[in-house]
């Protein structure tokens, strides 16, 4: 369990990093927190011949309110910083609620937000959160920059995004959530710290006793994070009651099309979708 030989670069500027990615194309891999890439290299499942470590790039570790109504999280902001609610408001609460489900403490100390999105594990908490909130993902390469909506960023194949080999994910823009928005997160894993079998991330806009609108994203049920749009529709404009929640959870279980693996069959995952959506919504409506 030792990696194949590789070359290591620790550029000090964004331009230098992008230059290296451009030069080495798919021979190169970005190294962020290393919490997914390094194990994969040790198993020799990933064998980049060049590593471009972004640990020293300036600015990518900031959380900023760049424009009114939104927050931009730099690519190498650590899981732990988000778990500690550095953002505030309902958005900050959602980050905090979600963050504590990402792996174990030591992993959250090193692992990065951008790394999680770029890695695109189908059961990653941050990917589901980005999907739920229609995050905008900023990518840079030597030849330019672009922003991609979460819906287009994640391919419906595990560990696959629209990032080109020479592209660096630099930051993620998320909408602020209004104060009348309730947030909820529920996850089922075999043990504390394990990747989820199924997880649900929700943000529910209240209008008095009714639900104005809701966002629900699921992890662990497809190649990437997915929105439960039928469930969202089942909530919009309805009274915030247990019956409404149950109907939405049933709709979510109905609309997903999971595949089974050693930790659970497709039926089992459907059952979990129903349970997790119920629990996440209950939390959001509390």
């Amino acid at each position, binding site marked *: 369990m030792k990696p*194949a*030989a590789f070359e290591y670069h620790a550029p000090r500027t964004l331009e230098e990093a992008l230059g290296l990615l451009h030069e080495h194309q798919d021979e190169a891999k970005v190294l962020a927190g290393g919490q997914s890439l390094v194990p994969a290299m040790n198993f*020799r499942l990933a064998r980049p011949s060049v590593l471009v470590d972004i640990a020293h790039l300036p600015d990518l570790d900031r959380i900023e309110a760049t424009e009114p109504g939104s927050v931009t999280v730099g690519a190498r902001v650590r899981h732990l910083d988000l778990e500690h609610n550095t953002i505030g408001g309902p958005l900050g609460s959602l980050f905090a609620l979600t963050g504590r489900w990402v792996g174990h403490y030591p992993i959250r100390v090193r692992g990065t937000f951008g790394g999680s999105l770029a890695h695109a594990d189908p059961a990653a908490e941050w990917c589901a959160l980005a999907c739920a909130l229609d995050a905008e993902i900023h990518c840079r390469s030597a030849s330019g920059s672009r922003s991609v909506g979460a819906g287009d960023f994640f391919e419906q194949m595990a560990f696959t995004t629209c990032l080109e080999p020479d592209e660096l994910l630099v930051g993620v823009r998320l909408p602020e959530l209004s104060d009348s928005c309730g947030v909820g997160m529920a996850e089922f894993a075999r*043990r504390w710290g394990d990747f989820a079998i199924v997880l649900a991330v929700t943000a529910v806009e209240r209008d008095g006793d009714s639900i104005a609108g809701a966002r629900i994203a699921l992890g662990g049920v497809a190649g990437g994070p997915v929105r439960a749009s039928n469930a969202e529709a089942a909530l919009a404009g309805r009274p915030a009651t247990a019956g409404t929640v149950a109907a939405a959870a049933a709709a979510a279980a109905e609309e997903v099309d999971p595949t089974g693996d050693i930790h659970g069959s497709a039926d*089992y995952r459907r059952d979990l979708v129903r349970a997790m959506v119920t629990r996440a919504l209950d939390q959001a409506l509390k």
Partner: protein
Amino acid sequence: MTAGVRWTGRSLRRFEDPALVRGLGRFVADVADRDRGTLHAAFVRSAVPAGEIRSIEAPPGAPVLTSESFPGIRTMCARLDRPDFVALETPVLATDAVRHPGEPVALVVAGSRAEAEDLAEQVVVDIDATRPVLDAAAATDPAAPTVHAGLDMPMGNNVVLDARFSTEGVDAAFDAADEIVTLDIRAHRQNALPIEARGALAAHDPSTGRTTLTAANQMPHMLRTALADILDIGEAELRVVTPEVGGAFGQKMCVPREYVALVAAARLLGATIAWIEDRSENLLASWHSRDHTYRLRGAFTRGGRLLGLDADIVCNIGAYSNYPVTFGVEPLMAMAELPGPYRLSQYRVRSRAVTTNMCPIAPYRGVSRPVLTLAMERLMDTAARRLDLDPVEIRRANLVREFPYAMPTGLPVDPGSYVETLDAAAEALDLEGFRRRQQQAAAEGRYLGVGFSVFGERTGYGTPAFAARAMEITPGYETVQLEMNPSGDVTARIGASPHGQGLATALSQLLADELGVEPRQVSVVHGDTDTTPYGWGTFASRSMVIAGGAAKLAAERLAAQLREIAAHHLEASPADIRLEDNSAVVAGTSVGVTLPEIARIAHHSSHLLPAPIEPGLSVSATYDPGGTFSNACHAAVVEVDPDTGHVRLERFVVIADAGLEVNPMIVEGQIHGGVTQGIANALYEELVTDDDGNLLTASLMDFLPPTACEVPLIEVTHVQTITDASITGAKGVGEGGAIGAPAAVLNAISDALSPLGIEVDEMPATPSRVRELIRRAQSTTTGDRT
């Protein structure tokens, strides 16, 4: 230290721990790192479960060794001398066929492990893959592929052991029964998962012609013998050293092919070569464990008395036999011990070992007992529910109370506290109070349950017990050599091979009491075949009983010698001399001589010793007992989440009887570790392969040991029944935790889900399995999918 206070029975902190917790413990990988010039090996392994090797191609000139590199080497073959046994031979490296995924085919050597892995990747093994057989039931089908083609299998395709036993009146007992309970128990495959995987360092010294193998191992002397036999060399040419060993649990007991190949390679190349197994290799191709199915039928009276038991046991033992205990250990132990502590006169059993294209099986903490206890305890609970009896009552009606008792197989059971520990567990849980709480919870749609598990564990057995299995290599006795050096300190050299159990501390306590010294003055030497007497290592909950017994016998001899010298020196009678506080004193007086003074005389003024006392203070003793049953009751309280199938352990209570506890803290530590592995067995750990034999749980992302977050506080209460089956009064306690826990957990889940009519007979009871049972139950009761 005041006179009269005994060390035995005190929870002394372990002498072993300061080095370990400060990172000073030296494991085999540390030893390998320390030696400059160490080469590193990697094994090229079969990617398929079954096939014929067509060719092995390596880069020209590369140090790649295959079976052809070692023409003189023998196969490994341990035997049982019984007509219902088929011996399986294991080549050290695969020769023409591969029979399980990960089977070692070639060994490569390089300057570092990373380079060795690079080289291993360049070795191309061309295998003509054939259809594998993975499941034991499927393997016995005459049309199934034969794992060892060409081998005579008179008992059926791939059946390598088919043992039967029956008392006379089994059918009559079933005819007389009011209720017959049938049960199918399935225990899936596991890996013992020591934190340190296997590893070894073979160093050949051309100047002496000797080879030293430093290895993660529990049986160093046996390993030396096996290496000498297989390599066809004298044992004097070999030395086996076991440094710190990071857990073993049986996985480091049997002789690994890799260690043999490593020693052969070191001798061939005249080099020092390390092989440090990584986790994926360990999960794939170290020894596996469990993988049993039991079909059980119990004949009960209306009142819950068990009249008869009929069992059909099948063990999937994988592709080869382990060495030296053989694959027979699983089915034969299951057959001999299944009835457990329940009074029973009519018993019929058939127990088979079936070879398949899976990784071979070796004993793992408890061996067959976690599964046979699960089977019996599930039988009791299922019968209780059928007969509308309380689980405690049905057990009380059947548990042995009078001793000595003999199981229907003739196995003698010495005094224990079966009923007492059960009652104590029920009381510790406040069973009545729990039942009220359970009902309240049920009204809120919550599922709480309680489960009990009562068992006896046969421990500390010597050669008579192993001989009953007709083993060609019959383990069992232990020898302890004791020496008091001129300063009055004591060295104990033992053949047992502790690897984390704290045996050095416990033996020091025992010896301190016998010799009148302090435990700190005793140093225990183990794990080096050059400096310890031949012995069988540490396994089967034996060390405190057998090595402890030998230590006590040796100490009695040394004490007699000390008393004799003291008596001569003090002009008293040896019978009047007491050894205490580092002195030998004439009883009832203050006249005495210190032990260091006696030791000086014995070593440095031996001309003053009266005949026939010889110079020095060195004795040896051997102990070879018949065995003693320790016992315990485990009780678990769980809550099952009906939506997810998740089982939360709320409480776990153990009432343990290990006889005399030399160090109760160590006993408790053994129970905590064992229960944790039992919980792993019950709920978490499972090796899963796909239909082509590929291991799907090849890393710790998928093979899931429970962590501190999943394991509740384990509440241990101690009971001590002293019997004369063990001369120290101690009974073995190394495996009990792992044996009792699975049944307690599965019984608790079944109790929780009893409103839905669910019985859980398969382990691990993973959330998806539990949820599947709930889904099925709900759809039959409500007629729709929930």
